[in-house]
């Protein structure tokens, strides 16, 4: 599903990632961990095509991101859900519109978008908050909206960058349960986190980054 071959990324003189080779299979649940500045976010951004590697190759579902056109990258992103620590929601749009957006950009008919949005919001427990605006919601609820948006197109891959970084332990547990459920439905899930609590008692694969290198 995701393959990295000797990937390096530098920003000016700083090396964010050095010689990373990694393979993540379809349906896997993987944690990427490491201290702040270890290169977790850069790794996820490379997989999402938001950055180009300085060296090496990245294959997503067999597609080489080094050779992909801009339009095809847009199309590929529709199959990858991305959840951010700061949620990245449109505060002037309702919960419904925020989630529906990811379906609308795919050119889906409104009737189908509406049905899918209702379903996914019910699945994340926000059926009663459809018409609310993001700033009227708690942090946990906003993250659920972001997850719903990432999941509405049934992506093959879900990338989450510190998705519980701003949330309290109870809400964190709920969000992680949601990721597990998504993974059980067949979506490959990759979560970047520096939280030790999140990794305790987990039987999932853990990839550790240190100073841009795999441990």
């Amino acid at each position, binding site marked *: 599903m995701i393959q990295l071959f000797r990937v390096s990324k530098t920003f000016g003189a700083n090396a964010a990632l050095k010689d990373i080779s990694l393979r993540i299979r379809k349906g896997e649940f993987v944690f990427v961990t490491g201290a702040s500045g270890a290169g977790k976010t850069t790794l996820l951004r490379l997989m999402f095509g*938001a950055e180009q590697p300085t060296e090496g190759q990245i294959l997503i579902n067999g597609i080489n991101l080094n050779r992909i056109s*801009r*339009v095809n990258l*847009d*199309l*590929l*992103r*529709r199959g990858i859900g*991305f959840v951010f620590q700061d949620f*990245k*929601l*449109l505060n*002037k*749009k309702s919960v419904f519109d925020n989630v529906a*957006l*990811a379906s*609308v*950009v*795919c*050119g889906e008919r409104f009737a189908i978008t509406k049905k899918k949005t209702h379903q996914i919001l019910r699945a994340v427990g926000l059926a009663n908050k459809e018409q609310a605006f993001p700033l009227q919601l708690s942090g946990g609820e906003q993250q659920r909206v972001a997850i719903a*948006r990432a999941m509405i*197109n049934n992506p093959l891959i879900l990338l989450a960058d510190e998705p519980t970084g701003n949330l309290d332990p109870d809400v964190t547990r709920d969000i992680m349960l949601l990721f597990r459920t998504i993974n059980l439905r067949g979506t490959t899930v990759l979560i970047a986190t520096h939280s030790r609590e999140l990794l305790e008692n987990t039987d999932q694969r853990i990839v550790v980054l240190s100073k841009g290198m795999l441990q």
Partner: protein
Amino acid sequence: MTWARYFKYALTNISTNRMIHAISMGTITISMVLFGAFVLFFVNVSNLVMEWGHSSSMSVYLKDGIKQDAKQRIESALINLPGAEFKGFISKEQALSDLMETLGPQSGILTGLTRNPLPSSFEIAFRDVQRLQLDPKKIKEELEKLEGVDEVQYSEQWLERFEAVIYVIKLVGLIVGSLLSVAVLFIITNTIKLAIYSRRDEIEIYKLVGATDWFVKAPFLIEGALQGIIGAVLALLILFGMYWLFSLKTIRVSGLPLMDIVFLPNGHIMFILCLGLVLGLMGSFVALGRFFRFFD
């Protein structure tokens, strides 16, 4: 994604970002008012010259105390002048009366006169001066040789001077018009760019969920086009309001009517509307191009 949907998105965006759009539209309107005012001025000056150019009249002023037979000789010479239409005789009293009527409420300045300073005159007109290849200057010289003629004046003299002025005005108009267009484009582009910049998070999120560039750009282009055309309509309304409010139907110089002011002809109104549309569209296009490069 259909155009109707892009359109709906654009209208929703305008409604959601009312303040930004109001500021952009206000800027476009003010720029277009400046441009429209310039076009209005230019159209009226051109009309004035065209009006004067269509016909040419001549006044043959007679010396005070001219003898009756000399007056008759002049009259018959004018009647027989090729290409000329004899318009009549204006006596000194008639000339004063006409002037008083023209001055209207300001005619009081003439009441203190101890004698009538205006000369009597014969009026003639030439139709199609250019087609008949008449030389008003030569006619003037011939007429001034006649006994009892004090001076001959013809509108062509004014026109010659005015044609030089209109040439300069045209040249200045071209330069000022071009500069104004560039300035308006610059203002509109930067206003729209600021509006787009204020919504950069929105664009980023659209791109993150897999929106194509066209999906993001199309509503912005429609918004720009709408802003441009609405700005142009508002500018035309303001110009017409000013035109109507000040009742600039007739411009008077020292009480004398100089010209009738007209509003912009339909063709020019269409031009300003199209210009608004094109500038709004181009402003958005340029701003988006720059912004997307920044965003990449």
